[in-house]
C-alpha cells in the first residue's frame, strides 16, 4: 500500500470508481506474447473478435491490425483461433 491511497473518509461509497479501468495497465501480467507473421496474416479479423480484452485493434485507415501489449495478458486465444496460424506465442521479455 502506498501513501497515495485514500482513507475511508475520502472515498466514494460502494466502490464507485473515480478512475477508468483503461488507466490500469494489465499487460504486465503476461508470460507469453502473441507475435504475428505478416506474410501469413490475411486480416480476417477473427483475432479481433475473439480477444477477451479488446487488445487487438483494427485500423481501417491502415487496413491492418495491431496488438496493444499494454492490455494483452498473453492468453493465446488469438493464436488458437487464427485460421492461417499466423500468430505464435513467444516468451515475453522483461
Amino acid at each position: 500500500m502506498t501513501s497515495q491511497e485514500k482513507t475511508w473518509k475520502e472515498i466514494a461509497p460502494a466502490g464507485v470508481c473515480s478512475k477508468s479501468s483503461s488507466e490500469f495497465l494489465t499487460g504486465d501480467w503476461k508470460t507469453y506474447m502473441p507475435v504475428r507473421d505478416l506474410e501469413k496474416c490475411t486480416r480476417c479479423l477473427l483475432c479481433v473478435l475473439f480477444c477477451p480484452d479488446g487488445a487487438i485493434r483494427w485500423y481501417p485507415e491502415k487496413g491492418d491490425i495491431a496488438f496493444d501489449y499494454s492490455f494483452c495478458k498473453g492468453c493465446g486465444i488469438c493464436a488458437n483461433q487464427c485460421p492461417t496460424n499466423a500468430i505464435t506465442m513467444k516468451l515475453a521479455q522483461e
Partner: protein
Amino acid sequence: MQSVAKQKMMALAGDEAVAYAAKQSDVDVVAAYPITPQTIIVEKFSEYVANGEVETEFVCVESEHSAMAASLSASVTGARAFTATASAGLALMHEMLFVTSGCRAPVVMAVANRALSAPINIHGDHSDSMAQRDSGWIQLYAENAQEAYDSIIQAFRIAENLDVLLPVMVGLDGFTLSHTLENVETLLDEGVKEFIGTRQFPKVLTHEGKTVPFRLDPANPMTVGPLALQNYYFEFKRQQEEAMENALAVIQQVNSEYAKISGRSYGNGLLEAYRLEDAEVVAICLGSTAGTMKTVVDALRQDGVKAGLLRLRTFRPLPVEEIQSALAGVKAVAVMDRCLSFGGNGGPVFHEVRHLLYEAASRPYVVNYIYGLGGRDTSPTELRSIYENLQRIIQTQRVEKPIQYLGLRD
C-alpha cells in the same frame, strides 16, 4: 405541537398491514418470491398491481436469491425497492444481503420471522433474521401489526437517509403477527408520501471525472460494487460501520418525526422501556413477546414486585449506550432469545447484552432464556417465572444456571 393527521382504522393482519404500508410508500419495484408466513404480503401487493392501484413494477422471480438481486439492482438505479421473505427464503438471500448493504442500496424488506429447517417448521422464531445479523442490514423488530405498518414506512426514511444508505429489514413474528387480525390505524396516502419524500442521492466522482448523483444512469455511467482488494476493501467496510453508527441518531429522529404525524412512537425508536424506572428485575426481549410481557409486568407491579421490561426495537445497530443507561441500577436481568446459537453459550441477544454490561458501573446478574422456538407458545405464567427466578437470584446472590430453556419439556 403539530396536530396529528387524520387516520383510517383498518382491520389488518400483520402481513396485510405491511403490504398496505409498502403500497403507501410509493414503491417503484417489488421483486419477491412467496414463502410462509410472508406470502400474504406479496400476494396482497400483487393484487394492488393487478388492480392498477399502484404503479409498481412487480417482478416474479424464481428464488429469493434473485428477489434480493433484483431489489438491489432496482435500488442502485435510484428506484425505491421493497421485498419480503422469511426463514429459508432469507437464508437463500444470504449472499445477496451482503451485496445489497455493500452497494449501499436502501432496500426495505419485511421478514415474517420463522424457524429454520430441519425439522421443517413454519412458525415463528428469530432464527432466520438473527442468522443475518452481520449482513450489514439495519434490523427492526415489531411488537404488533400496528408497529409493523409504522416501521415499514419509517424504514424507507431511515434507509434512504444520506448519512445511512443501508438496507433495512423489519421483523414481524410469524403467525403471531403476520396472520393475526388487528385494528391498525393507517395514515392517509398523502401523509405517507409527504413523510417519506423522494429519494435523494449523494454526489460521487465517476471515472469520467464527473460529479453526479450516486445511481446507475446510462447518461452518467459509473461502476458500483466492483473489485476492491487488499488495498481498499477494508475502507469500504469501515464506511458501512460508520453508516450503522449514524443510523442510531436517524432512527430516533424518524421515530419522533413520525410521532408528530401519527401520534405513535416506539420508545425512542431504538428501545422501549416499560415500567423501568426504579425496576430491580428486568426482562429484555424483541418482538411480539413484549406484548404479553407488559401484562405480566403490570400484574407483578400490583403485587409489589419492582419489575420492568426493556424491548429492543432496533437490534442492528445495537443501541449500546442506550441499553447501558436503561439498565443502570437494575439488579437482575433476564435476556430472552427466540433463537439458539448452537454451541455459542447462549442466544445472540444474551451475548450482546451481557457483553455491553461488562463496562457497567455496577453489573447486574444476567440470565439467558431460550424460548418459543418453532412457534412454541409462551404463557404469562412462564414469563412470570422468569421474574421469580430473577428475584431468587438477587436473594441468593448467585446465577445458578445462566442459560435456561423456557417452556421446554425437560
